[in-house]
């Protein structure tokens, strides 16, 4: 086999030219595209991290505000419950007082009514007994018995004195 140096040299030059052309028109644009791509990815990652951080901060803020709102709501509920209990107790106490007053008033009224009725019944009974006794005395008291009564009363008059 014969080695031809000029041909080898030619091949080397050709290869060099091809490498130069490829480097110039293919390798550099691809490298540039890859750099841009890498830069975009890097920017995207940074943006994603920033977004993630912002999201976390937002979440923390939301959680904090939610916690504060829950605390305030709890306070409001507790206060409202306390107020409601206090108001309920006041209403209950007032109702009891009014009920007591009404019961006392009704009891007093009933007692007064009962006493009045009792008094009236006693008066009616006394009137009935008196009237019956009067009628019996008027019917059955004879003149001699009347005379005896009067004689007895005349003797007892010494116990009485008119003012002169």
């Amino acid at each position: 086999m014969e080695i031809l140096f000029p041909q080898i040299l030619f091949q080397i030059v050709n290869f060099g030219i091809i490498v130069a052309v490829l480097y110039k028109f293919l390798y550099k644009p691809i490298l540039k595209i890859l750099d841009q791509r890498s830069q975009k990815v890097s920017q995207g990652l940074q943006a994603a991290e920033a977004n993630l951080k912002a999201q976390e901060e937002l979440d923390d803020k939301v959680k904090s505000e939610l916690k504060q709102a829950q605390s305030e709501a709890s306070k409001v509920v507790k206060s409202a419950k306390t107020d409601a209990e206090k108001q309920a107790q006041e209403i209950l106490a007032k109702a009891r007082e009014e009920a007591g007053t009404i019961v006392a008033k009704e009891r007093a009224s009933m007692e007064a009514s009962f006493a009045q009725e009792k008094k009236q019944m006693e008066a009616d009974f006394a009137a009935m007994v008196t009237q019956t006794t009067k009628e019996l005395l008027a019917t059955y008291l004879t003149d001699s018995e009347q005379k005896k009564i009067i004689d007895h009363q005349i003797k007892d008059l010494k116990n009485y004195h008119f003012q002169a």
Partner: protein
Amino acid sequence: MKANTFGSANPTLVVESVIPLSDAELRQISLNLGLDPNQLTLVNQKTASLIGGMRISYQGQVLDLSLENKLNRIRE
């Protein structure tokens, strides 16, 4: 009605009763009450509604000894 009149200026002692009373009884009534019958006008008045006893009036004062009065007082 009986009356013992010793002058119109004398005060009157009125005794009401169902049965009529004698002058002696009227005088005894005035004496027992500590009053002088000679200085009184004694009047006996029959009151049919007066049951059991007598009612004596003297110068606006009334002494009711009737059973009716006692019954009324019991009723009150």
